């Protein structure tokens, strides 16, 4: 009784599912069915087991979980009837996979069935084993399969051959056992056995060099002869496809010949004739014939060279390429990719046709062709090919533009013969498809522009023109804005005119218009707007006539809801309004960007930049919210390249040193005049300061000679703040700290009760003294409240007084607002500020802090820095 014809319930279920109008309905039907099947499983129902499994397979196909039916497969396999076994094995292959532990349980049934007297049952077991066997099963059952390779019925031998493939893939060590039986399969006449035997031999060659050597010697001639017989065989209705007898067998044999011939001249020689015969005699007006030709070409390209054959193969590809059938063109492009390494010249001949394929309406063909063109490009043809591709970019589909743009950019960057050409092509790409250009591509362009000093004027003018036409392309806008900010004066004055250029008249107002447009475009993103803001700042210094307007433009963003823009607006506004003296230095043209560094960074060689990791360590100055990162952004690219001084190797110290100031303490007493464009923050804050009093080198030496532990090194660093070194000579300060260090254990117990700690002079220079008073709140020994008092010892009044502090990562610092920002002279008053420090490693590490104090005297900006490491030990 056939379980499927009698069991109307399976049909009913399928009908019910078909009738469902929505996915929800379908889920409901499936849920009901699954519940019924589970119930049947629980009752151990024999009669409908196969029908339930058939249902589960349908449910599985629809994509619903069916794991609960797995054990039913095993029960069916273990039953004696053929139909039950049949459906059980099918369920096993569909519902299970080799990762399931259930597989362990099936090994025994499989072994029994492989030895069954009914050959159809043996066939079922072989098929299941070939589809799902695991490494363990492969080891257990390999002897059975090996034996079955010699079974009397060819239908069993062919399945055993494919089963062997699975076994040696799972356990390559077993390969050698199969070499001899596989070789004898090649001599058979049955097509099924031949096609599986050839596949098994190919697989064996992949896993074992010995097998490859063996087949080369023993089987090459035999295979060549078999293939010859096949090619010349009379009409065989059972295997005939479009006048060719069993094209599938042809193809598998050609594949096997490829493996044998690759890297072996003798074997290649042996197959030359038959390959030539296949290549010339095969009919190419039907798909089956083309499939054989295609395989034959690949084999010719892979085996050892014999001139004539290669020409034949390339000609076939040429024919394929001009075929009207898209499938044939597709495979031709695919094969030309492989042929290019063998015979680049021959492929180059088809360049025009291939370029046409890039413009095909079929996405699959376009993709293949584009990849091929990419391989075809070299120094000599880069210009015409790029021209073609860029022209096509104008009309390409939106979804293809991304791929195309990436490839063009890569080609241009790789083969560009000169900078002006590179810049020209990139501007074209940006104008056409700027929205598809990746960030690193336009970053690279800016680096190149920055390095081509003789092309600055040309580039900025070209960008100006491009912007007029393509202002909707984001990355074009960014590059244009950056260049106008940097080289705006060259734009207006037609500086660096090249012969090929038409002169243009651009007024300062026109240039500002561009940036104005960029910042106001509704689809400009934050990066573009922020870049435009910087460009405005730079232009305000380059174009004094527009300064008023620019100031107004920048000020519009003071109320921006985007923090970044608001902050830039306020900062830049204050630079323009009250720091005229440093503005011109601040907005100077960027120094030439270092190409090597940029390339290195793209390759990921440079570790995470200093600025971002340490940015967080800068604490809030006087309670005003201000993060360090945007300042670094000011001059974007270069700021991240601050070299880390090698002498400050220990992380501990690095933590202490805020931002880019890393270099400063390493050069004791040196003034903070700008060294390069890279120390951005340093520049920003220190321009116009009087250099701090020079510290004598000898004093530093004395200190550094005493340095032993990391903390004493810090002591040394702290006393670098010029006057504290002179006031507390090294000999004195070190014992003081020792003294405190010695006290620490004794004070520790008192500390718990919120005891009073001695006040310290945290910082003292010629004119400024900072004292810290400490207090603790009961119950939180980790937290220290610091009451800082600032006193001005000079006769002048300090205005805009800002105190900043930074601490290493194991500390947390909170600053309350200062009591004021003006500090009267001659010690006649003071500013106080409260700090709260939480030491996450209380008892293990001691407090340390780095200070920066900025103020104005007689309209001059002063910056002072120091380090506090004479904190009482037990805070």
């Amino acid at each position: 009784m056939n379980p499927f014809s009698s069991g109307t319930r399976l049909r009913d279920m399928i009908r019910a599912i078909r009738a469902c109008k929505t996915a929800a309905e379908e889920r409901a039907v499936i849920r009901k069915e699954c519940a019924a099947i589970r119930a049947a499983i629980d009752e151990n129902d024999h009669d409908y087991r196969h029908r339930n499994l058939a249902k589960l397979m349908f449910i599985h196909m629809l994509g619903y979980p069916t794991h609960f039916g797995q054990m039913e497969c095993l029960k069916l396999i273990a039953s004696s009837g053929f139909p039950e076994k049949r459906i059980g094995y099918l369920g096993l292959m569909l519902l299970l996979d080799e990762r399931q532990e259930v597989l362990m349980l099936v090994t025994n049934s499989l072994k029994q069935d492989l030895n069954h007297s009914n050959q159809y049952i043996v066939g079922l077991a072989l098929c299941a084993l070939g589809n799902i066997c695991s490494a363990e099963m492969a080891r257990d059952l390999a002897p059975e399969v090996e034996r079955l390779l010699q079974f009397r019925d060819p239908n069993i031998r062919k399945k055993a051959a494919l089963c062997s493939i699975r076994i040696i893939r799972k356990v390559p060590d077993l390969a050698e056992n199969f070499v001899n039986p596989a070789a004898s399969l090649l001599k058979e006449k049955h097509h099924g056995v031949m096609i599986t035997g050839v596949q098994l031999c190919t697989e064996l060659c992949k896993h074992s060099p010995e097998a490859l050597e063996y087949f080369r010697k023993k089987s090459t001639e035999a295979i060549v002869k078999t293939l010859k017989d096949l090619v010349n065989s009379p009409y065989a209705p059972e295997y005939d496809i479009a006048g060719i007898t069993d094209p599938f067998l042809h193809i598998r044999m050609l594949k096997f010949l490829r493996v044998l011939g690759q890297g072996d001249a003798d074997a290649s020689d042996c197959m030359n004739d038959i390959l030539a015969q296949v290549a010339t005699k095969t009919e190419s007006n039907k798909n089956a014939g083309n499939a054989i030709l295609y395989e034959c070409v690949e084999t010719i390209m892979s085996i050892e060279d014999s001139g004539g054959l290669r020409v034949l193969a390339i000609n076939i590809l040429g024919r394929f390429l001009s075929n009207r059938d898209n499938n044939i063109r597709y495979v031709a492009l695919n094969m030309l990719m492989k042929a290019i390494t063998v015979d680049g010249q021959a492929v180059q001949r088809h360049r025009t046709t291939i370029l046409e394929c890039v413009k095909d309406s079929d996405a699959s063909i376009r993709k293949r062709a584009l990849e091929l063109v990419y391989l075809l490009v070299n120094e000599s043809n880069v210009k015409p090919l790029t021209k073609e591709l860029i022209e096509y970019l104008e009309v390409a589909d939106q979804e293809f533009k991304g791929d195309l743009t990436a490839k063009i950019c890569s080609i241009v960057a790789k083969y560009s013969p000169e900078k002006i050409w590179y810049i020209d092509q990139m501007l074209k790409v940006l104008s056409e498809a700027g929205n598809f250009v990746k960030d690193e591509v336009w970053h690279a362009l800016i680096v190149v522009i920055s390095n081509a000093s003789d092309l600055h004027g040309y580039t900025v003018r070209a960008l100006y023109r491009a912007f007029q036409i393509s202002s909707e392309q984001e990355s074009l806008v960014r590059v244009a804005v950056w260049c106008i900010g940097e080289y705006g004066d060259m734009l207006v004055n037609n500086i660096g005119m090249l012969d090929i250029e038409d002169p243009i008249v651009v007024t300062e107002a026109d240039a500002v218009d561009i940036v104005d447009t960029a910042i106001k475009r509704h689809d400009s993103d934050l990066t573009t707007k922020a870049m435009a803001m910087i460009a405005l700042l730079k232009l305000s210094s380059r174009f004094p006539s527009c300064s008023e307007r620019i100031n107004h433009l920048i000020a519009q963003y003071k109320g921006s809801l985007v923090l970044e823009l608001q902050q830039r607006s306020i900062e830049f506004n204050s630079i323009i309004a009250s720091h005229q003296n440093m503005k011109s230095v601040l907005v100077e043209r960027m120094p030439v960007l270092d190409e090597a560094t940029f390339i290195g960074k793209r390759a990921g060689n440079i570790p995470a930049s200093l600025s971002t990791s340490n940015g967080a360590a800068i604490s809030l100055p006087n309670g005003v919210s201000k993060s360090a990162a945007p300042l670094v952004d000011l001059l974007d690219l270069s700021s991240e390249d601050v070299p880390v001084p090698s002498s400050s190797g220990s992380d501990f110290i690095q933590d202490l040193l805020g931002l880019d100031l890393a270099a400063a303490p390493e050069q004791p007493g040196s003034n903070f005049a700008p060294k390069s464009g890279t120390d951005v923050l340093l520049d920003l804050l220190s321009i116009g300061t009087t250099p701090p009093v020079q510290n004598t080198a000898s004093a530093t030496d004395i200190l550094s000679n005493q340095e032993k532990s990391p903390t004493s090194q810090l002591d040394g660093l702290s006393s670098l703040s010029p006057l504290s070194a002179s006031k507390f000579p090294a000999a004195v300060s070190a014992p003081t700290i020792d003294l405190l260090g010695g006290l620490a254990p004794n004070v520790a117990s008192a500390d718990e009760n919120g005891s009073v700690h001695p006040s310290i002079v945290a910082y003292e220079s010629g004119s400024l003294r900072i004292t810290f008073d400490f207090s603790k709140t009961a119950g939180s020994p980790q937290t220290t409240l610091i009451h800082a008092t600032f006193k001005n010892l000079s006769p002048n009044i300090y205005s805009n007084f800002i105190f900043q502090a930074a601490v290493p990562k194991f500390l947390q610092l909170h600053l309350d607002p200062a009591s004021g920002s003006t500090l009267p002279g001659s010690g006649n008053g003071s500013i106080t500020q409260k700090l709260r420090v939480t030491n996450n490693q209380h008892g293990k590490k001691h407090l340390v802090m780095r200070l920066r104090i900025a103020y104005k005297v007689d309209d001059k900006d002063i910056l002072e820095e120091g380090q506090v490491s004479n904190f009482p030990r037990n805070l």
Partner: protein
Amino acid sequence: MGIRFILMVNKQGQTRLAQYYENLTLEERRALEGEIVRKCLARNEQQCSFVEHRNYKIVYRRYASLFFLVGVDNDENELAILEFIHLLVETMDRHFGNVCELDIMFHLEKAHFMLEEMVMNGCIVETSKSNILSPIQLMEKSS
């Protein structure tokens, strides 16, 4: 090596038969089928029968309302797979007599049996229609 999955899908994109020769979880299968079907069904008659998706190459062919999609490795002969799809359809035709979507739906297990005789573990086992169908006919006779 070779074939990694075979799908039969109707015009509406519903799966009618799915056979995988590699391990994918249920979720992966659902996602993969959805993506592939969307991609292939959107193409027109003139476009070629090959679509690259993830690390598969999909060779597909349409017969009336039914799409046959075969996922293969990159080094597989695409034209041969196209021919293989046709052989599969002819074999089903011979058994069902002008096969249609409903035949496959209501005789899912038979379609699988045929496929099992043709492909094992992603490799072609047999290309003769009578050899493929004889065990199935034998089973029908005996029941």
